[in-house]
Every structure is written in structure tokens, then in C-alpha cells.
């Protein structure tokens, strides 16, 4: 196991940025450490200075605004899974984060760590991908806002360079049934806790008069990053929200994805088939959540 030399707990974002700037690449942001510490243990990480962002008050907040959510960069999975606001207005994120690891992991692990660790099936990131989240990234050079889909360079490789920049907050539109918008999450794993998904699917959608206005579908792990079938999403605008259409959509998505075979997490043909099942179920569930909505 490698070890860092110094560990900082800044109380403000400015202080955190100052520390990163000071160590010029030898420092690194740490959230809950649930990905980073195992990487130290396996000698895959060698930052000398760790900058812990979990004591910065504004990064720990979940704020529900008029029509959007702002999630602080150091908000934990437990916070998201336990928030009534998130449950009411971003159910897909509540459902996804409650699946992460175990209570211990959810208490420590943060949503930004889930994005920056860049695993194609990270549960929180899959939900945020369907939510079309905008990620606020701050560095000594200032702040930029980037859609989550543009933050991936490859499996385990993020465009966010946490040796110089911090995800300060994440923003997305709220999912409001009153506007006929709804969401859902589905996941298949080898057991009921502490298991990475064989397949996970998040959807957000809007309907009008029994037809899809739009839908966003995020699927993992079937590509280098959380995968969105943009073409099919375009195609389904205007399609009826009945079982048969959903079956066709799910089938098409499944034809499109190219999951890998894993000795531990399922072979490609099984995963492909499960994408069909879970996309179908997630869409059905989201539509059912609109309840009274007439066809």
C-alpha cells in the first residue's frame, strides 16, 4: 500500500482550489475515498497531498430550486438516497444511489467521486446521465459548466482532472409529475447489496396524450461510459407509450449495445438481453408513475 504524505480538510472551495494550485499536480481531491483509498492500496495511486472536500459546507447541500436541483459536489449517496426532495423530484437518482454498495459506502461515497472515477456503470452517474446533469467544475482558472456526457475519456478515465479542479456542484432539471415528466431506475446484480451492476438503466421521460414527448435513456456497462442511445431517443418522440411500443424500443436499444463478456459479471449475450428487459421495465415503471395520465 502506498501512502500520501499530507491530508488537508479545507473549509471552503477557495481554500481547496488554493491547495491544488499550490501543489501543482501533486495534490488530489478526495471525497469519501471509497474509490481512491483502494487505489492507494493497490499501488495505483500516488498523490502526495490529499485535499478532502467533505467539510466544505456549500458542497454538502442539496437545494431544490423553482425548476431545478443543485447538488453540492461532496453530497453523499446516503444524503441523496435519504432526501425527500430527491425522492419526489428526481426519483431515478434516489433509486440509483440507494443501490450503491452498502450503508458504509453510501455514507462515505460522494456523487462527484462517482462521476470522476468514470466507471461506465456507476449508479449515480447513470442516473445523472439520464437527468442530463450539468456539472460545475472549478479551478484556479475559474468555473466551467459541462454536460455530464462530455466528461468521459474512457473506462476509468475522466476529463475532470482532480489534481487541479473540483466538481463544486451538479445541476439538473427537476422531474415533476405535474409536467408529465417522470423517471425510473432498474438494476441487475449478483446479490442485493454490495454488488456492482451486471446491467443498470436509468430513464427520464415526458409524455403528452399517451405519446412520448421525449425520453432519455442511460445504460451501463455497455460502452466506455454511461451510454445514451441518442438515435433511438429521437425516434421515440411521438410514439405511443403502450407496452408494444416499449417492447420495440427496448429491443432496438438492445440491438444497438455491445456489452463485453465478463467472467464475473455476465456474458455479452446475456447482458444484451438484460438491456432489453431492464430498458423495458424502466420505461414501463416511469410511465406507470405518471399514474392518472390519460392515453
Amino acid at each position, binding site marked *: 500500500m502506498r501512502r500520501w504524505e499530507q491530508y488537508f480538510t479545507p473549509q471552503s472551495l477557495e481554500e481547496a482550489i488554493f491547495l491544488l494550485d499550490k501543489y501543482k499536480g501533486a495534490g488530489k481531491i478526495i471525497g469519501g475515498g471509497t474509490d481512491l483509498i483502494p487505489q492507494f492500496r493497490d499501488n495505483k495511486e500516488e498523490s502526495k497531498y490529499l485535499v478532502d472536500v467533505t467539510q466544505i459546507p456549500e458542497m454538502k447541500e442539496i437545494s431544490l430550486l423553482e425548476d431545478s436541483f443543485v447538488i453540492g459536489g461532496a453530497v453523499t449517496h446516503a444524503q441523496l438516497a435519504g432526501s425527500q426532495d430527491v425522492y419526489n423530484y428526481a426519483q431515478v437518482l434516489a433509486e440509483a444511489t440507494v443501490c450503491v454498495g452498502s450503508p458504509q459506502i453510501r455514507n462515505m461515497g460522494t456523487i462527484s467521486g462517482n462521476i470522476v472515477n468514470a466507471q461506465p456503470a456507476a449508479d449515480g452517474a447513470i442516473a445523472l446521465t439520464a437527468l442530463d446533469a450539468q456539472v460545475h467544475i472549478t479551478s484556479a482558472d475559474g468555473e466551467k459548466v459541462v454536460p455530464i456526457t462530455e466528461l468521459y475519456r474512457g473506462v476509468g478515465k475522466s476529463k475532470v482532472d482532480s489534481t487541479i479542479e473540483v466538481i463544486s456542484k451538479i445541476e439538473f432539471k427537476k422531474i415533476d409529475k405535474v409536467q408529465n415528466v417522470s423517471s425510473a431506475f432498474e438494476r441487475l446484480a*449478483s446479490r*442485493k447489496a454490495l454488488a456492482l451492476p451486471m446491467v443498470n438503466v436509468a430513464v427520464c421521460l415526458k409524455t403528452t396524450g399517451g405519446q412520448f414527448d421525449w425520453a432519455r435513456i442511460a445504460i451501463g456497462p455497455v460502452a466506455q461510459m454511461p451510454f445514451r442511445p441518442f438515435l433511438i431517443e429521437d425516434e421515440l418522440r411521438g410514439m405511443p407509450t403502450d407496452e408494444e411500443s416499449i417492447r420495440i424500443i427496448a429491443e432496438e436499444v438492445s440491438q444497438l449495445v455491445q456489452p463485453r463478456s465478463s467472467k*464475473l459479471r*455476465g456474458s455479452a449475450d446475456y447482458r444484451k*438481453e*438484460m438491456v432489453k428487459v431492464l430498458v423495458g421495465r424502466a420505461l414501463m415503471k416511469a410511465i406507470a408513475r405518471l399514474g392518472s395520465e390519460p392515453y
Partner: protein
Amino acid sequence: METRYIGKNVDRPDAIDSATGKLMFCAEKRFPDMLYAKTFRSTQTHAEVLEIDVSKAAQLEGVVAVATAEDLPGVNIHGIHALDQPVLVPVGGKVRLPGEPIAVVAAESIEIAEKALELIEVKYKPLEVLSDPELACLESSPQVHDKRIVREYEYSIGDVERAFSEADVVLEYTQHLSRQEHAYIETEAGISFYDSDGILTLFAPAQEPFNTRQQVARALAIPESKVRAKVPNLGGSFGGKQSMTVQIHTALLTYMTKRPVQMIWTREESMLFSTKRHPGRFYYKIGATKEGMITSMLVDFLLDAGAYADQTPGVVVSAGATAIGPYFVPNIKVYGKGVYTNNPISGAFRGYGGPQATISVERAIDLLADKLGIDRVEIRRKNGLKTGDKPGNAVMVLDSRVTLNDTIEQALAMAGPKPMPSGKNKKVGRGIACCMPQFDVSAKPYNGLTGAGAEVELLVDGSVQVRTGVVEMGSGIKVALAMIAAEELVLDMNKVDVVLSDSMLTPKAGPTVASRAMYCCGNAVKAAAIQLKDRVNIKAAEIFQVPKDLIIWDNGKVYAQGKEDQAMKLSELARLCYVSGTNLVSSIFFVGTHAHLGHSFCTAVADVEVDEETGEVEVLFLGTSHDVGKMINPIGVKSQILGGGVQGMGWALMEDMKSENGQIIPKNLHEYPIPTANDIPKRTEIGIIEDPYPTGPYGAKGIGEHTNYTSTPAILNAIADAVQISLDKFPATPETVWRAMKNRQSDAKPLATCPSSVLEPSTVTV
């Protein structure tokens, strides 16, 4: 009979500390001046070691000793049933599986020790790998040891061939068994040091301290009297910590450096090199009348011993003895063997071969019932063993009144009606499985486990210390023995302390294996307490001037019957005994009186719901009925039953320590799932049948392993019932079930064929 403690729930005194993380384990201890040890392990699966160069490692600053086979003063060999495993593989020797230790390093820190490993150079000449046990006996296959078969088992009675020709129905079936990891929370760890008397002292988890003492002394060529082995708090074993792990290595490094040495295996090392549950294959041919009476059974089984014999000799015999199941069968032929391969070493795992046999026979019985068109419960009722019947092996006698059917009826009553599916694409199934597990009763002819020593000492402050050599493996033996002493001496539990598993302090009592600790040590402690009380009563009778059978013990006071007002404190009586020359330490070496093993019956019923689209299986209900003789501590018995049931469920649904060409695939607990608290079945029921077993302490039988036999086959049978798939291979992961459902129609299964070995068993070789 009104009891004080026996049969009442008593919490384990260490329960809160274990649950809150306060209990200290070997890996957490630090001694002054302590060195940290690490193992250099083979990366090859099967290879000759040509050269070992540790010179660079030895020169690294902070490295205090590097040991190879050359540094071992004694015999470079260890093993339990057969001595075939090197302590450290020497130059000119062979590595037979990945992870075999070649050198060990002691350094001032773990980091330095790890760095030193990188500086060790070993040259190998790779040899062909044998990974398929089915090929192990072929002349053309690579040879792992001089002999190919570790152990054979043979049992026959009647004339199976004739019975098959006369049977109305004959079923053939082959069950494949996957390899299971014990997955105990505590990885292997130990500390060794010289005490002030120059005794090489070793703290390390194991299932018996005396075996550690013997093996360490042999390897270091020092008398056993110069070695003290103590098993401190142990974080799970399930059979997996019987063989030598860290012990000889840390002891050797202490021997060389004269300093305390600690070695802790990482989870990866533990999974790489700990023993596993034997994978294998069981072939069945069963003949029956059309009414469903089984007339004959032919069994041919093969267990993969892996690279060393370890416990295979015992496991083969135990599997053979369980192969016929809890049924009366007049014509039997069982042949089985364990063979060497270059796969992970198979050892003891809760049930010791019995669960493998039980899964296989219980799947086969279901298929036989289906073929006959008879109800799957009915066929078990019809053929279940009854008191006095001859079981299908030579090591058991049905000497208790409980029958298989008692457990079947209790389990079914607990199950109630079969649940309804929770939605569309869901199918519900129910499975039943029965067994007759064995337990050791310290009976002379078996296993060399004979005898269990215990001491009970009355101290002059009126407190009592119980000492016996068995190990607390989490099954609650420590509190149960305290209950027995407190019961016999009519004391409060807090006046009794139990000291276990220390080769210098406790009498030899055999290992905690074979579900024997309660039966053997329970009997020993009970007899020792009675003996002690009797001795003290002689003095009390003298003091109170009454015959000794009128002396009454009552919660730390002693008086003559009817004269409670003149009671004397037990502490005072103890003092008087001591000053007048009464020996206050009583000592018993319990040896069983039976000429056979103990047995019990068990039936499990499981309900599952299968998702037809994903193949996911949810266990809705698991209920097991156990014939336990008598519960000493009911809460302990019931938690054993629940835990064993869930462990068996893990094997049925998710656990598979796969290997390819000798290399294991899951490398840590992330890649090898076991059930979590969330996976425990929605509804569980535990049924207890108490009919005191005459020779057991208060009537108790063994239970620890028995809990791990039936949940696996009950769940597999339930899945087969729900979605009509074969499950001749498991675990039933979602993908396995999904694939089997997909292939349901196209998969016109060819009949299993009889392996040739049934016809020509070779001679027994161990």
C-alpha cells in the same frame, strides 16, 4: 426437570464486542519490537523450482531475515491426514499450485517486507498442468504427486445389478458441484514470540492448538514441550483453518530472529491459498418399483482434492457415507475417490463432503419422483430411514427414536401453503431436501479424534474456571460449556470462566471439527464438574456432619438439607478444602462408548420465486427442521441453523470459486459474492425436534455442520420446480438460470453415462 441454564437462551458474552468491533483479533495485536512477515509465492501453477535467489532481498535495509527451505531446521513437510505439503518449496522441488510459499521475509515494516518480495528471484521449469480431475487417473495426464488418487471409498451391500434388472424404473443422473470459498471475515494471521521461559509461543487462528504445536515442533526440530500454541479470538473458519497457514512461517522467523513476528494474509492471499470446499461430480443410478420404493443405488463420485491431500482422505469417506442419503436402500454400491490436480487445495468445509453428496442425492430423488410420477415429498416419506433400519454406510447405527419423517412433517408444517407469484413473468417453486448428517462422538474406531479432556477448578474465592482444548469457532461452545458448569455447580454464570484452546493451559480435547465439540467437551465438562462437586461434598459432609448426598449447593452457598440458615459460602468451603488437602481441580478425559458415529436427521423446505426474464432467484422461504437431541443454548442452536442455511443458500445461488488451468478467477470478496444481510430469505423458520440422545450431554447431539446440508439442495429443487430446468451445474446465478430456461426445449438431455471407474475400483491407497 427444572434447569438453571440448560435449555434457556444465554447470550454470548463476546457478542456485543464482536458486533461493535471491539474484540481483538490476531491481526490487530502489536508487540514491542515486532517484525512483520510476508510470503513470496509461486506465480506458476505447476513447475520445478530451479533456482531461488534471496540475496538482494536480504540486503534491503529493514529486512531482518529471509527464510527459504534451507533455513528450516526440521522436516520440510506438513499436512493433516497425509504429510505431502512442503512448508517452503525448495530448489529441486515442485510448486503444484499458484501461491505456494517459496520464501518468507521478516522486516521492520509491512512496506519493507513487501518491497523485499519484489527483490526475490526464482527460476522455474514449467510443467504441464493438470486441471481436469476427470483426467487425473489417465496415464497420459501430468503427474502432480507420485500417486494420483488421494483416497478411495467403497461400500456395497446386496446386488445392485440384479436389482436394476428387476426395477420398474431406473434413473441415471450426474450432478456437478462447484468449489466454495469459506470466506471467513478474518484472514489468516498469527504472531509468534519467545516467552520468558524460552518457549516459542504462537497466537494464530486454527481449529486445534495441539495440531499447530505438533507441526511447528516437527518443522523446527524442537520438542513439542518447547512450543505453545494458542488460538485467540477467531474470526470464522468453517473448516478452513485446520491446516497450517501462517504458523510455521512466523515460528520459523521468530526462531531465526528471536523477535516477535506477525504475519497477516491479505484477502487476496487468503483466497489464493486457503483451502476450499471440494468441487466434484456425483453419478447416480437409482432403481425403484413403480410404487416408489427404492431398490438399489449405484453411486460413483469424484472429488477434486487439488494440489495436496489436506483433508481429502476424510472428506472422501464422509461423502461416501452420506451418498445414499437418509433412505433405506437394500442394494447399494458406492465407489468414490479424491484425486490430485493442480487446482486450489480442497479441505474441510462445514459438512466435510456430506453437503456435496446430499445435494446430488436430493436432486436425483426429485428426478426419480418425477420419472415415477410420484409426489416428491411422498417418495421421501416412503423411503426415509426409521429407527433400527440399516443406513447406507458402515459407520452409523440408527439408535435414536427420531425418524426422517418427523423432520419432514415439521418442515412442511412450518412452510404452510406455497406462496403466489408476485407478478407476471414470475414463477414460484417449492423444494424439499433431507439428510442424515453425522457427528463425532469420540468413538474409538474413527478419525483419530478420540477423546476430549477438560478440567474444572474451584478457586478459593468461589469462582470456577473451566479449561478445555477445543476452539470457539463462533458456534458458541464457550458459553455453552460455562452453562454446563454453572448448571452442575448451581452457580451464577458470572462465577464461571471458560479458558479454551491453549496448548499450555488447556487439556488436549481434539479439534473443533465434525460437530463434536458440544458432544465431546460437553460430556467432559459435565463429568468434571460432577467429579469436583463430589469431592468438595466429602469435605462439606464432614463439616456439616451429614451424609454427602444431603449437601445442597445453591448459588454460591452450601448447606445441609433443611439447614439453609447454617449455609456456608462456597468460597469459605473452597478455602477449607484447600487447606485440608482436597484437590480442587478435577480432570476428565472423555472417551465415547459408541462403536459408530452419531447421526441426526434434517429436512429443509424452500420456496423461491424465479424471474423468467432475468433468471433472478429470490428465496421467499427457508425452513429447516433439525433433530438436535437437546438444545443446551437454544439461541445458539438457532443461529447456527440460520447461518448454516444462508451459507448453503450462497452456494446454491452465487458462490463459485472458479478456476482456469489451476488459476482462481475470483480474487477477492468483491469478485466472489456471498450472501449479505439483505439476501437472507424473506421468511425463515427453524423447527427443532428434541428427543434427548442418551449419551449426549443432557441429551445433546452435534449441530454445527448439520445446518449446512439441506438448504442448497432445497433451493435448487425449488428452482427446478418453478421453471423446470436441470441444474446439474450450479450456482444458479441469474445468467445460469436464464440460459437454462432458454435451452429448456432444445436441451433434450442425453442420459448420463456411467463412469468406468464404478466397474473397476482400484485398490485403496492411503
